[in-house]
């Protein structure tokens, strides 16, 4: 994300920015933290750490710009630099493989011909959430940013420090993996139904 010129805020302005531009995103931030760590305490720590950093560096935030994207970027960096190092969880995604996949003829392959809208709508419990949670963290992240939070590709590229082309290819792969999980679940539902 490009460096914005440093702002100068009075204490009242700082509090206004914090309360009116940063705090309204706290539920989304907590959801993001929880879906990255799957632990309520770790999610709380990540959110608290993010807000403390945002306040400390508030003068590098330009009022009226995209506060939500800035906060998500701080949380993502805290997760990678602090949490991931602490838990020693390496990234499992082979990006070369992803790029190759995306640029291959395979890209149009219909991988889940048996997944139907009707079976998705029958999933009334936690199936969708569980399928999302089962994806590797980098794939999970792009789906959270795009589909849950509605960020544009350009914003995602800035949050994740990756080119827009990589956002698109990672998102494409993530969605295919999600469909595979949902398809497996739909099959298991069908199997159970025939048993009953």
């Amino acid at each position, binding site marked *: 994300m490009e460096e914005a010129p440093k702002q100068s805020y009075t204490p009242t302005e700082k509090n206004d920015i*914090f309360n009116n531009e940063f*705090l309204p995103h*706290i*539920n*989304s*931030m*907590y*959801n993001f933290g*929880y*879906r990255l760590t799957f632990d*309520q305490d770790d999610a*709380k720590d990540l*959110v*608290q750490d993010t*807000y*403390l950093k945002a*306040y*400390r560096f508030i003068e590098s935030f330009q009022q009226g710009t995209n506060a939500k994207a800035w906060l998500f970027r701080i949380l993502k960096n805290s997760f990678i630099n602090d949490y991931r190092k602490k838990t020693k969880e390496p990234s499992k995604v082979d990006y070369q493989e992803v790029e190759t996949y995306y640029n291959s003829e395979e*890209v*149009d392959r*219909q991988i889940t011909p048996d*997944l*139907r*809208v009707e079976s*998705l*709508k029958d*999933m009334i419990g*936690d199936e*969708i*959430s569980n399928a*999302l949670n089962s994806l590797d963290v980098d794939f999970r992240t792009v*789906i*959270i940013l*795009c*589909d*849950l939070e509605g960020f*544009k*590709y350009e914003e995602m590229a800035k949050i994740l420090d990756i080119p827009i082309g990589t956002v*698109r290819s990672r*998102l*494409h792969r993530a*969605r295919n993996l*999600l*469909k595979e999980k*949902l398809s497996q679940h739909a099959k298991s539902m069908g199997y159970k139904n025939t048993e009953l």
Partner: protein
Amino acid sequence: MTNQVNPFILADGKKPSCMEMLQLILDGEASAEQQAYFKSHMDKCAPCFKTYDLDITIKELLKTRCCGDSVPAGLVDQIKNQISLNKAS
């Protein structure tokens, strides 16, 4: 319509796949021209037609089923208190 230039064609001349076009539509990243092209493309491409419905449904379900949890009670106050302490020190 059949001779219409595909507005999804990239600067390098590479023709995008159906799935690449669909993704741009789904994520609201397509221009008005691209949206119009894809609408007419879907009339002739059954896999796109089917996948479009499926992908829209998944996107909607993700939004409704995986959002909406509130932050634990007390966290906002905890953060504000910590900021006050940091200011005082």
